[in-house]
Every structure is written in structure tokens, then in C-alpha cells.
């Protein structure tokens, strides 16, 4: 089961510059583990003390995962996951 994960510029040092990589997992936590297996170190940049880092936003099919159960958010084949740093609007 492959899920495309879009990686922001700032984390592409972990993906050899790739903008998007494939990973697997039935939950966001599992997906991040699978991501880290192929791109060691990236998990620590996304997660801190068992939760998403404050300045990291992750979207599943454009919806913020914090409103879908956070790391427990369920994923299915074909979902698109986007990782973005939190920036100011307004």
C-alpha cells in the first residue's frame, strides 16, 4: 500500500532532494515510521515527545491531521499526505 508524501524544502535533506516520496502505513504514526526507515532522521523532525511538532502541519487529502486524530489518523491506499511548516498568514 503506497501513499505519496510531499516533503517541504526544509526537510529534503533527508530525501536526497526528492519533493515527494512513497511510504506505507495504516495510520499516520505507521506512515512516519516507514518514512523514517527509508529516510533516517526525518521522524525526529516531525515528532517531539510523542506528538507532532508545533511548527509542523500534516494534511491528509488537504485536511489537517490534528482534526483527524493526529498520529492515530487512519490512512488508506491512494491518500495524499502533505507536510508543511507552519507559517504566518494575514
Amino acid at each position, binding site marked *: 500500500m503506497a501513499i505519496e508524501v510531499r516533503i*517541504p*524544502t*526544509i526537510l529534503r535533506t533527508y530525501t536526497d532532494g526528492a519533493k515527494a516520496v512513497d511510504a506505507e502505513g495504516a495510520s499516520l504514526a505507521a506512515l512516519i515510521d516507514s518514512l523514517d526507515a527509508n529516510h533516517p532522521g526525518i521522524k525526529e*523532525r516531525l515528532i517531539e515527545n510523542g506528538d507532532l*511538532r*508545533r*511548527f*509542523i*502541519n500534516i*494534511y491528509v487529502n*488537504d*485536511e*489537517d491531521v*490534528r*482534526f483527524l486524530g493526529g498520529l492515530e489518523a487512519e490512512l488508506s491506499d491512494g491518500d495524499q499526505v*502533505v507536510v*508543511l*511548516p*507552519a*507559517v*504566518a*498568514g*494575514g
Partner: protein
Amino acid sequence: MRYDNLLASVGHTPLVGLPQLSPSPDVRLWAKLEDRNPTGSIKDRPALRMVEEAEKDGRLRPGCTILEPTSGNTGISIAMAAKLKGYRCVFVMPENTSEERRQILRMWGAEIVSSPAAGGSNEAVRVAKQMSVEHPDWVMLYQYGNEANALAHEQGTGPELLADLPSITHFVAGLGTTGTLMGVSRFFRQAKPDVRIVAAEPRYGELVYGLRNLDEGFVPELYDASLIDSRFSVGPRDAVRRVRELLELEGIFAGISTGAILHAALGQAAKAVKAGESADIAFVICDGGWKYLSTGAYEGTIDEAEDRLEGQLWA
């Protein structure tokens, strides 16, 4: 409707039904026309309230200089109020904001300091905070952390919506400073707690997310995630497509960020239809499209418009 002066006319905007975009008679969309405010955007509400609260607590006195990081609309609103009240304004704006916004600010007598495009509004906030240390006598209203921003919506936008649409089930607005969503949500959590509060967040091109490190990320001090029920990220393609549909089907000429909000509102409408539920979904028309004509969002194909918006702060 008659008012004593322009500032007194802020708010009290019309709520109009959208019969063409609404999927069924049971699932209806309603647009709150915030472009009808004096300077043409929803930001007149928080800007005026922030200025008035700062006057009340004595921070803002005649002859003062107001400093603010803004990508445009908040600055325009503050500049208008400041012109009438006699304050000088200095705004820090990312250089990748539309030329119209700069011209309008200069017209109202504001001074503009440009911050680098890379990093978007984050950089504007950083530069403004630095300038406020160098000029301790300047007053930074700081829309991202000023409770008066949310209060303007809690006491204005929210009650107006409930009065015009007692059957409201959803409220959808843009997420920037988070002031609109926080304020309106606080009102409904008290007055009608089952109203779902939905955020539409613009997703820009990569340049805007070009932080040097993750610790430079930014979450507005006003933001309280518990006041929101869901949050969607909307890219320029969907925003442009929806803003054109709004004009085509309902005759409303809105700014690009409103397209992003409409996209999220239509998502909620589709969900309600699928669940067989009735819904009255109100969303915000933040401003008109005039200030964004030069971005190229309204001409040519969607592909062309999407390309032109790459790297621009379109919301």
C-alpha cells in the same frame, strides 16, 4: 442606512444566499459580504477594534506612529482609521504581495517597509518585531496576538450571522491571523454550540515555506485549535477555480482567498448531502477581486492562472 461617519459604518454586512452553488434546497450556502466594509475587506472590523482598544488603554495617543506586519488588507484598514484619527503608519509587507495593495496603502499615506519574499508573512512579522525594539515609542497593534482582533468578530460578525441565519449549521472562514475563526467560534460556542467551525488555509508555493529552520515556524498567539472543528489546506488551483465559479454562477467578484474558503464550504456541503443532512453553511467573502487583477488569476486558463500565482502571497 445612515451613520455619523465612515468608521461607524464598519460591519453590519449583508448575508446573501447562493441558489446556484447550493447543492439542494436543504443544503444551502450563504455568503457574508465583507467586501462591503469601508475599505473593502473584512479587516476593517479587527483594525478599527484594535485601534479603539489601544486608544482606550492609553497606548495610542495623538501623534503616535502605528507599526504593523501585514500582507495588505489589515494595513489598508488601519491606514484608513489612522488617516481619520491622525496617526502615522509604518507597515512591513512581504515583497511578493500585489502592487495594488501597495498603491492603496501609499494613497492612504502609509509608509511601507518591504520584507523578503522568501518566508512570506513570517519574515514580515520578524522584521516588524525587530523594528519595534528599535522604536519603542511606536505602537505595534500586532494582529496575530491582539485579543481585540478576535473580539471584533465575537461581538460583530458572529451575532450578525446568527441574527440573519438562525438555522446556521456551519461557519467557514479563512485562517490567517485566526481572528475571524476564533472570535466567531467563541460566540457560537456560547450561543449555538452545534455550529461547526471550519477553517480554510491558503497553501502557497514553496518559496513561502522556505524557512531556514523549523524553529522559525509561526503559529499566531490567538490560535486555539479547540475552537475549530476542521481545517483544510487549499491550493491556488482550487481557489482560482472556485473564485471564478462564484462570479460565473452567482455574480460575485471576490478576491482569491475567498475562492479557497468557498472550496472548503462546498466540501462541507457535499458531506451534508452525502449524509442526508440539511445544512445552512455561511462563509466569508473577505474582499473583492479588484486588488488581485494584476496577479492574472481572473484571465486565461486555470493552468495559466495557477502558474502566475506561484510564489505570490495571493490570500
